[in-house]
């Protein structure tokens, strides 16, 4: 064993001991002689840490091991056609780290060799085309930050409060910077015929996902993306190529994108008939409900982020977003919607992207009913759940953007509730 590796092994042991000390420091009463976190020399203050060759691709601190995607086993028949959830409660700002972006697959993660990946354009075009990844890298590129929200985000909450944590109630959303090529440029290369009115993306995975997208949207702001947050797409996010459909339901953002067909009518694929149609109380169902409406959630305090510091200064924070454009304003209520104050938006305000809001207040230790209400630049106001149910019933599954209530008990414990 070399001297270096011995020291590294020692360091690893030291890390665990450090964690125990840090925890003890939080709970033990202050010693007369002072805080041992200060008065005692810490391992990291004495011993060298890992060198620059230790982790060619870095990972979060071991102390952040709890900040992970989580799934809910009973939601689906099988983890291969299923979903997991972004840990929104632990995150800040507006960008979701790539490794924490929620996953939704219909036949697992396709592991596609980029050398063998092809993108075909066919249908009502002048010249059906095939592109390699290398071809796609020669088109003009654009960078955009967009949220991607699953149509079923908050879907388990249609009938009432069910899952206890914003990771579960709102975590089928993420927001990254995409680098890609405008879909418009690709379609222009093939030449869309006058009769072409719809575009159908298709995935290369075993679910061969297909959706129908109107040509106007395809030509407006859709991207064919190969990078997220600066690096290649993660396999679970469609490596090496995915469709980006800003503001629209996540199902349409076809991953492992291999084909775009142009047609004169929609295809009515399984994912726009059986699924991603919204059953109303009268037995009719809405189809082609593409846009994700104005929405927000308080990420802290929340069930997974109780108030542990007692009374006094408290930071309330959360996320707001709208498929229509920018968020103009977020209001926050501490008393279940009786009274509202306008929260402070902070950070970039980009269309069809997550927005971060804060509201700092002095908590007097009494119970709270926290709510947030987003308003987008078009003037649409986030509705309450009762307002949504009044017009839709409780069986829509998708597009639940109702206002969320968190109950903060006097001990700081937070619960997902519905209120009168």
């Amino acid at each position, binding site marked *: 064993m070399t001297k270096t590796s011995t020291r590294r092994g020692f360091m690893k042991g030291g890390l665990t001991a450090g964690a125990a000390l840090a925890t003890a420091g939080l709970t033990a009463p202050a010693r007369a002689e002072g805080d041992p976190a200060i008065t005692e020399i810490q391992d990291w203050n004495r011993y060298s840490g890992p060198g620059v060759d230790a982790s060619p691709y870095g990972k979060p601190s071991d102390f952040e091991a709890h900040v992970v995607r989580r799934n809910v086993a009973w939601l689906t028949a099988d983890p291969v056609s299923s979903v997991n959830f972004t840990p929104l409660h632990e995150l800040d700002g507006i960008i979701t780290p790539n490794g924490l972006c929620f996953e939704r697959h219909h036949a697992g993660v396709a592991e596609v060799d980029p050398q063998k990946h092809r993108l075909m354009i066919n249908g009502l075009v002048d010249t059906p085309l095939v592109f*390699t990844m290398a*071809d796609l890298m020669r088109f003009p590129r654009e960078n955009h930050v967009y949220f991607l929200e699953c149509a079923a985000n908050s879907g388990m909450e249609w009938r*009432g409060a069910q899952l206890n944590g914003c990771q579960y109630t709102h975590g089928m959303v993420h927001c990254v910077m995409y680098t890609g090529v405008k879909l418009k440029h690709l379609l222009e290369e093939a030449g869309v015929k006058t009769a072409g009115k719809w575009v159908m993306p298709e995935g290369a995975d075993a679910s061969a996902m*297909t959706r129908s997208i109107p040509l106007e949207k395809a030509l407006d702001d859709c991207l064919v993306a190969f990078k997220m947050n600066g690096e290649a797409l993660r396999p679970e996010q469609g490596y090496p190529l995915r469709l980006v459909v800003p503001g629209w339901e996540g199902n349409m953002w076809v991953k492992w994108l291999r084909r775009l067909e142009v047609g004169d*009518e929609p295809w009515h694929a*399984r994912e726009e008939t059986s699924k991603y149609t919204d059953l109303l109380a009268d*037995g009719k169902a809405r189809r082609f409900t593409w846009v994700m409406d104005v929405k927000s959630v308080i990420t802290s305090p929340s069930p997974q982020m109780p108030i542990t510091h007692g009374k006094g200064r408290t930071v309330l924070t959360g996320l707001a977003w709208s498929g229509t454009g920018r968020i103009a304003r977020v209001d926050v209520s501490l008393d*279940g*919607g009786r009274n509202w104050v306008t929260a402070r938006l902070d950070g970039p305000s980009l269309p069809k992207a997550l927005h971060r809001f804060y509201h700092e207040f002095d908590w007097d230790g009494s119970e709270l009913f926290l709510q947030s*209400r987003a308003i987008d630049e078009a003037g649409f106001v986030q509705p309450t759940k009762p307002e949504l149910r009044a017009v839709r019933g409780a069986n829509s599954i998708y597009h639940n953007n109702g206002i969320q209530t968190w109950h903060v008990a006097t001990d700081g414990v937070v619960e997902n509730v519905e209120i009168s």
Partner: protein
Amino acid sequence: GTHGVLHLGRPATEAEVAAWDIDVRPDGLGLPEGRGTVTDGEALYSEQCAACHGDFGEAIGRWPVLAGGQDTLTNDRPVKTIGSYWPYLSTVYDYIRRTMPFGNARSLSDDDVYALTAYVLYLNDVVTDEDFELSRETFLSVDMPNAGGFIDDDRMSEPHYANKADPCMKDCKPGKAEITMHAAVLDVTPEGEDGADGAPS
């Protein structure tokens, strides 16, 4: 090539387009040659499908229910199946052909898919004759029960969106908030029957 503006990519061959473009539309566009009867489909179904979807399309565990549920769409707990909910038969053919059986997609022949589609119609009482043969020629003669059950997105007509009113800021509701429902499941997992309805699938 001479195509396009930037002259990137190359023309797709007919064989390449045929290999990938297998989608089928409600008007029958994309249907391949082929045929299969309800009886053919029953044998295939038992072998390839019943382990997940159940002998009668009733489903095992959380796997999708394929048959039944007619006239339940206004119920408190609707049962949405091919017979009770799906608007187009083309979707059945297209989806089976491109993605089923789960874990072994693209393994069925075009005739197999016609036969299975015919059998699923039989399970749903949409056809009642075991000798019924589904083919490109007979495909459009089948009427799906819920074909008229869909409307285009009209969310923007809902009162909370339509008026775009500046919302109330002060003394918006009388009295103190009272909890009417607690999160039923603390930190997840259980066997909650309720979850099925809201679950993405």
